[in-house]
């Protein structure tokens, strides 16, 4: 049986037979559509944030509570994690030893967790300054938008952990391959959303 390579969202793999190829195509197209639906949620929260930006009602303002240092560090960490996930995908594509796939997934997970720790620290700092979501419409919209991304990253971390266990238990079978590809789309999508958050929320907030 010759290998079949087709085109679908995400990294294209060589598949052992045509059915696996068709199944992967459908699965990844479906996940892509899901991400687009999820993107609508983020888009609406961005819009809500934009509308409520001025509703500070005498409370903390964006430039008063954002800090460029941690936000930049989070950006670097998350972008690096996207790169390491890419290395994991390539390891899977070229049939590298299972160790290498696990290793890169592990590095990605560690970076994801580091991102989450830093983000929670940011939120706690804001809380300490009285910038809680209960304070104003502006802070409500901030705490709906940014932590929702964080929640996605947390879900992604859990998913990474599950996939690492599955790689150990099942090896790289058809389902593991499809789900690693899906997770890849998810992880890179979160990166793109974060770039939006960093530019629209943090940079714009600090420039004002």
């Amino acid at each position, binding site marked *: 049986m010759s290998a079949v390579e087709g085109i679908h969202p995400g990294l294209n793999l060589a598949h052992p037979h045509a059915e696996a190829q*068709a199944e992967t195509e459908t699965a990844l197209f479906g996940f892509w559509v899901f991400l687009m*639906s999820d993107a*609508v949620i983020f888009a609406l929260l961005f819009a*809500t944030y934009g*509308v409520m930006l001025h509703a500070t009602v005498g409370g903390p303002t964006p430039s008063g509570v954002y800090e460029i240092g941690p936000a930049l560090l989070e950006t670097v960490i998350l972008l690096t994690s996207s790169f390491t996930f890419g290395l994991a995908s390539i390891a899977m594509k070229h049939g590298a030893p299972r160790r290498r796939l696990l290793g890169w997934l592990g590095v990605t997970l560690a970076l994801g967790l580091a991102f989450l720790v830093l983000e929670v620290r940011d939120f706690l700092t804001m809380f300490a300054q009285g910038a809680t*979501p*209960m304070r104003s*419409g502006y802070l*409500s919209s901030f705490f709906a938008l940014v932590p929702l991304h964080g929640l996605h990253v947390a879900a992604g971390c859990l998913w990474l952990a599950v996939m690492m266990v599955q790689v150990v238990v099942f090896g790289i079978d058809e389902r593991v391959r499809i789900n690693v590809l899906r997770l890849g789309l998810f992880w890179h999508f979160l990166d793109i959303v974060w770039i939006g958050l960093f530019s629209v929320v943090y940079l714009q907030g600090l420039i004002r």
Partner: protein
Amino acid sequence: MNAPLWPAVFGRFGWMDLPFVRAWQDPSVSEIIGAGAGGLVVFGGLAVVVLVTWLGRWGYLWREWFTTLDHKKIGVMYVVIAFVMLSRALVEAVLMRMQQAAAINAPGFVAPDHFAQLFTTHGSIMIFFMAMPFLTGAINYVMPLQIGARDVAFPLLNAVSLWLTAGAAGLMMVSLVIGRFSTGGWTGYPPYTELAFSPDVGPDYWIWAVTLGSIGTTLSGLNFAVTIYKKRCPGMDLMRMPMFCWTSLCTAILMIFAMPPLTVATALLALDRYLGFHFFTNDLGGNMMNYANLIWLFGHPEVYILILPAFGVYSEVISTFSSKELYGYTSLVIATMAIAVLSFTVWVHHFFTMGQSANINAVFGIATMAIGLPTGVKIYDWIWTMFRGRVRFSVSMLYSLAFMMTFVLGGLTGIVLAFPPLDYLVHNTLFLVAHFHNMLIPGLLYGMLAGYNYWFPKAFGFRLDETWGRISFGCWVAGFYLAFMPLYVLGAGGMTRRSQAVFEPAFRPWLYIAGIGALVLLCALVTLFVQLWVSIRNRESTRVPVGDPWNAGGLEWSIPAPPPEYNFAVIPTVRDRDPFYVEKEAGNAYPRPKRYEPIAMPANSMTGPALGVLGAVTAFGLVWHMWWLAGLGLAASIATIIARSFVRDLYRIVPAAEVGRIDRRWRKEIDRAKPIGRAVEGTPANRGLAEVEAA
């Protein structure tokens, strides 16, 4: 139990939250009605449990229905949910009509707060738990058959969608027995639904039922769109798809992009209510206009989510029962797509009076009227399809005709409302209520009932009773006109919607007529069930095992009725539009396969029911502030999803011999059946084998 323990375990539940206790303390008619409704839910639930236990059918239900991933059975279960919820919401409508007729300068018999719950549940149920499950069920059943597929793209996800919807519908029923429902209308506008004005559990029931349902719908939309893009059989180009598949595709796209705004709206309202955020509150920078925009950014495409599948049904029914191919197929496809796109550009017309500038209103008013154009194209195409055709007035066709007349009328009043200065005069009156019932009853309910009569023989192998079908049809149409035409008059006369009492004696005759109309609609529902009962009783004389009772052209008619689990013994190849009709004319309707292959079908899974129950449990815990229950439900849901990802036996193989056996048995039926002409399709001679007539 000591004081701090009770709220930790039972949240904010108290004995007065039971309608039975309330009715005991205050035996007014209104409370007794509430207790009666709650009692009916408990009694009905128990009766079903006892009946199934007595028949010993739990195992059968679990194996064949609850855990199935078969798109056909999932479709049927959606429609069952729709019928149950339709019954409840219609009874509520009758109660409201009776109350208004009785409350002219009088208190009537339903208390104001109870009345507000009635119109809120009526609207929420009719939209989210009658209309949505009905059309999702229809698409689920029919679309994969029409495109020559063995199942949808993601069968497990399909079951999850169903069970999330079922869990949400269950939550609506529980709200009758424990606590109370929202009084904020089906759109749940804040700030009224905020804690400051509605601190009770009502809005929380609404929030979580709608949220669960909308997640299910988003996933359904995703599933349908991917199925249509990826699962078509060889030769089934997009422009050869039956019209119903096109409208399903557009509906699916709308679901993917229009349900998220609803999820965002309900989630933000929940953040306000649970964590003290300020999105829509009156103070600290909250702004309810954001809510109005979010909910209608969903709400308007939703109208087309509801109406487009019915348009698809009508296209199929009118073509089949006019014995002609569909007129203007390409223009119908373009019109459907145009409607889908335009539906995202008109949402502000739901709140013309809420303070945006006249120019913005003008833009949205014009966009709204523009939607009338593609809709008009469709009406003309259907009329031309009938022109010079041999029209048979079957029940489905009657619904289609009633739809065309009634829907055009509703469209005209829609143009009135789309014109902002006129909207200012009649907004928030019964004129609006009359208008949207005038769109949705023909534009959704008639369509679904037409589809129900049309595809029922395919699903169950026997036809529905025509006589009772006609009686029911007559009641639905007469009832509609009697119940809603007076509302136009009342609305133009200034009667506001959602009024518990009326103080204008001149309204009396109109309210009486509308009340009679509501009773006729109740008869329509009853006769609908009588039709089903009579049809089941007489099923031996109406069997159509060969599978083509109406001499139609779609692939779904080329297989047995009811179809085997895998739909097609051999995946068909399509050469044209109306593929089955083309093959019938070529004398090649039932080609014998050279050999049979084993078929892999998705194996049963309990993930769907588990997630549905856990979702409902989580929601219930959130409603009552039983945090331990909500946390447990959520954790168990996540655990279920992870556990499922470890399952590797995903398929069940139907051996080639089994496929061959089923197929040969069906071919014996074909040989035995006598081809019948269209004129006698309503008689017992119809065994589902159509006679090919000269064109």
